[in-house]
């Protein structure tokens, strides 16, 4: 399997007054197509900082990131939205759905940013909601859905436009055991079926049965 994501010697140092605070240090990580990788670690270990860099939302102080064969760490700040749009799908702990938009419209937003025409957007958003088992709730607003349903909409949104890489930040943290399991099964299934790469940042050990491998980060460094 080819590598979807290659991060080499990633370092992020924050400047706080006269002090330099290293958040991530010399992290090297590779994830292949069809693989689910978990980044585990306690709070404050640098998981989210690492995920932010892998998702091209935060520029590393040093090191390189290659997604789908393209080195993105050298790109100009103005080009990063384009990279995120093309290569990365996001799943967030708090879902971050647009409150005023229906489930289908939440998915359509991504497709719209990717330049799909109206009819294609509509069909694709319905297909993705069917895939996550929410075809009949496509016109519901997030406030009228359960936490598990919202996270499934979030997954459908992350899959929109078929990005090769999906980054999930604590996707099960706000869900009960049953919904957490459903979400992980779903993520695992779409990874396998479409040859996608999923990287999950979590400290929830319930995800373990659904991942291919895990790495552990402590004090900004990979330890295993």
């Amino acid at each position, binding site marked *: 399997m080819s590598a979807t994501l290659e991060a080499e010697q990633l370092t992020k140092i924050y400047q706080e007054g006269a002090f330099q605070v290293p958040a991530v240090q010399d992290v090297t990580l590779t994830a292949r197509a069809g693989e689910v990788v978990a980044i585990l670690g306690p709070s404050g270990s640098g998981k989210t900082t690492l995920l932010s860099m892998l998702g091209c*939302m935060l520029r590393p102080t040093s090191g390189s990131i290659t997604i789908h064969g393209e080195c993105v760490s050298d790109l100009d700040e103005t080009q990063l*939205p*384009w990279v*995120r749009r093309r290569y990365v799908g*996001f799943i967030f702990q*708090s879902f971050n759905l647009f409150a005023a*938009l229906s489930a289908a419209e939440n998915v359509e*937003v*991504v497709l719209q940013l990717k330049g799909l025409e109206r009819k294609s957007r509509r069909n694709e958003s319905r297909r993705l909601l069917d895939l996550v088992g929410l075809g009949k709730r496509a016109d519901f607003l997030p406030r009228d859905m359960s936490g598990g349903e919202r996270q499934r909409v979030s997954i459908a949104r992350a899959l929109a436009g078929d990005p090769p890489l999906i980054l999930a930040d604590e996707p099960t943290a706000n869900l009960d055991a049953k919904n957490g399991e459903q979400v992980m099964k779903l993520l695992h299934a779409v990874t396998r079926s479409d040859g996608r790469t999923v990287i999950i940042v979590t400290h929830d050990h319930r995800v373990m049965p659904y991942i291919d491998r895990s790495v552990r980060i402590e004090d900004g460094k990979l330890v295993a």
Partner: protein
Amino acid sequence: MVDIARKNLFHDRTRFIITVVGVTFSVVLIFSQFGIYLGFMENASIIIDNTQADIWVTSKNSANFDFPVPFNERKLNKVRQTRGVTWADHIMLGWANMRRKDGGQENIEMVGFNPETGVGGPWRLLAGEVQSVKAGKSIIVDESAFAKLGVLKVGDHVEINEQKVRVVGISQGVRGFTTAPYVFTSYRAAQDLDPFSQARTVFIVARVGTGYDPREVAGRLREIRDVDVYTRDQYSWKTRLYWTWETGIGVGFGLTVLMAIIVGVVIVSQTIYSATIEHLREFGTLKAIGATNRDVYWIILKQALINALIGYTIGLAITLIAVRTLGATGMVLVIPPGLMVAVFALTVAMCATASVVSVRKALNVDPLVVFRS
């Protein structure tokens, strides 16, 4: 098209209604102030604008149409002899006192014109004929004056400067800025009714021949001593500007319009800003999933423009209803198409300005906000 701007706007209906009410309030206030002002100004120069003359000659330093200073009427001959003038006549205007049928008294502005030509006379009659004022001391009264003079009809008798005059016509649409009723009579009768106007006139009006530029002919007429000479447009503007600045109404209306704009900007800014703050996380999400700053900017600007469009439309509708309603009571609000376009542009600018602070806030949002729980 997933219209996040519109969906977000209509999602919080209370805030949306408050914003639209704020914009509507501003629009109605701006329209009403401009409308009333333009109505006043139209009245201020109504006789100048409706008199078929290219040039107006007044005494030196005459302040405006309603406060003219008499001068020797023999200057009419000099005007007539000037190259480019094909026709000239004089018009009398003076303040007089009218005793109503009920015994009460009212100040009026008496316009004396040549009934043979009708120049300077009323242009729309509900009853009688313009030439009827040739018959001795007779007058045409405007119907808008009935509220002050009492209802009059052709054949009635009233007193002007303690002289009995007969009503021979009723005109329509001649309402002055001073609120004193205009009463029309023949030039000679006006002199007879005003003991200080013998052998004197207050205006000479002239027409220029084909191929002559009124400004050029006016320049030649300025060689006549002790008179001021204006083209019709110049005199109309002079009269309007006199009332605008000398009475302070220009400043008054201007300040009210400014207040309306400020109120509009503050209300729209406040509501759009609070909506932006509430949706800051969503803007962060948008940026995280690949939206550019331009996409975010457009969403906020579009919200402002939707507020502007809806607020303006409702405001214009209310204004037009007010124009009809107030028109029936005699109050004139003038809302020309140019003003509609200008106020629309102003409303859009007002709302766009109001969104600037919100745009800055949204553009500066860190996409990492999406990782905070």
